[in-house]
């Protein structure tokens, strides 16, 4: 019992898995929960810089698995949020240093200690993906509203089902409302219809994500930003709350809402 183990994956690289993991971890910890996030991308460590914790790494995931340190020693505590921890990936090793059963064992050890374990999966469908899926209680698939990302998301959703970790829930990242309105970007509804899984969040394309990542200060710390708000909403849905989806469209949507209300 105890923690919920959630793996964030996508198939395609560069759609925002690491950003999503970091921000959900921040949002959950901000709500007072105890959270550990694990960078599952062995050899391509990144969650540490996105969280702004890169200077504090002593031990990593592979050190724990190979017995060079205790689990506690590899958990970097965030100074901004008392209840947020990171277990970084090893940078000088590759995916074969970890097995699915290593990950299951490690997460079982964490379950009694924390409320949430969030695992950032590497891109691709090979060993690294299998390692991060194995301990998951549930899976979040991140995609962008464009053809290659949606296609890869569909593959991953199928694999998650095949591993009996389904049904995955969907996060659509980098939605550009102006392009969508113009008919030049797949809408969230289009993507949900194509992939036929449950939606748990829509994140607008927001320059604040880039700015905050530059500073190692995830955007979820800033509740005024639209993307920060969207991540906070996903965290709340993970906790079982019903949260309406945000409108990113500004004025016209305000009017269409008025019409709907009548």
């Amino acid at each position, binding site marked *: 019992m105890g923690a919920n183990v959630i793996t964030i994956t996508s198939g395609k690289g560069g759609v925002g898995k690491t950003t999503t993991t970091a921000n959900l971890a921040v949002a959950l910890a901000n709500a007072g929960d105890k959270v550990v996030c694990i960078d599952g991308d062995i050899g391509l460590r990144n969650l540490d810089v996105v969280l702004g914790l890169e200077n504090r790494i002593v031990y990593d995931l592979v050190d724990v698995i190979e017995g060079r340190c205790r689990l506690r020693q590899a958990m970097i505590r965030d100074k901004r949020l008392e209840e947020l921890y990171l277990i970084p990936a090893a940078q000088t090793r590759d995916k074969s240093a970890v097995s699915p059963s290593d990950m299951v064992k490690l997460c079982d050890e964490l379950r009694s200690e924390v409320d949430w374990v969030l695992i950032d999966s590497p891109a691709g469908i090979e060993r690294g993906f299998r390692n991060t899926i194995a301990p998951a209680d549930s899976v979040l698939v991140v995609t962008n509203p464009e053809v290659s990302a949606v*296609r890869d998301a*569909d593959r991953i959703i*199928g694999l998650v*089902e095949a591993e009996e970790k389904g049904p995955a829930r969907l996060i659509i990242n980098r939605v550009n409302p102006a392009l969508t309105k*113009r*008919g*030049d970007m*797949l809408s969230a509804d*289009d993507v949900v219809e194509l992939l*036929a899984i449950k939606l748990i969040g829509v994140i607008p394309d927001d320059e604040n994500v880039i700015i905050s990542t530059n500073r190692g200060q995830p955007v979820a710390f800033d509740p005024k930003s639209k993307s920060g708000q969207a991540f906070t909403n996903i965290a709340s849905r993970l906790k079982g709350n019903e949260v309406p989806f945000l409108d990113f469209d500004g004025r016209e949507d305000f009017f269409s809402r008025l019409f709907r209300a009548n």
Partner: protein
Amino acid sequence: MSDWVKQITSNKKQSASDAKERLKLVLIHDRTEMTPSEMETLKNELLEVISRHVEIDTTAVRITMNQDGREQRLTADIPLKSARRRGIG
């Protein structure tokens, strides 16, 4: 000029709906692990087997792969030729 007119008068939803239509087809083939040409072979063999037993109206046959949630469904609508039409004349 004519391009400009076309731009305004044509369907503005062009590229997103293109993306959606293309993805629909790609996902069907990805999920069934079947290429379009394998699909074509399946259709032909299916018709061949059926026509061994009854005469079918090949011009009106419709065999399609549809998405039903995360499941794929092969739907075949195969009109049979009636004895009369086949018949005497």
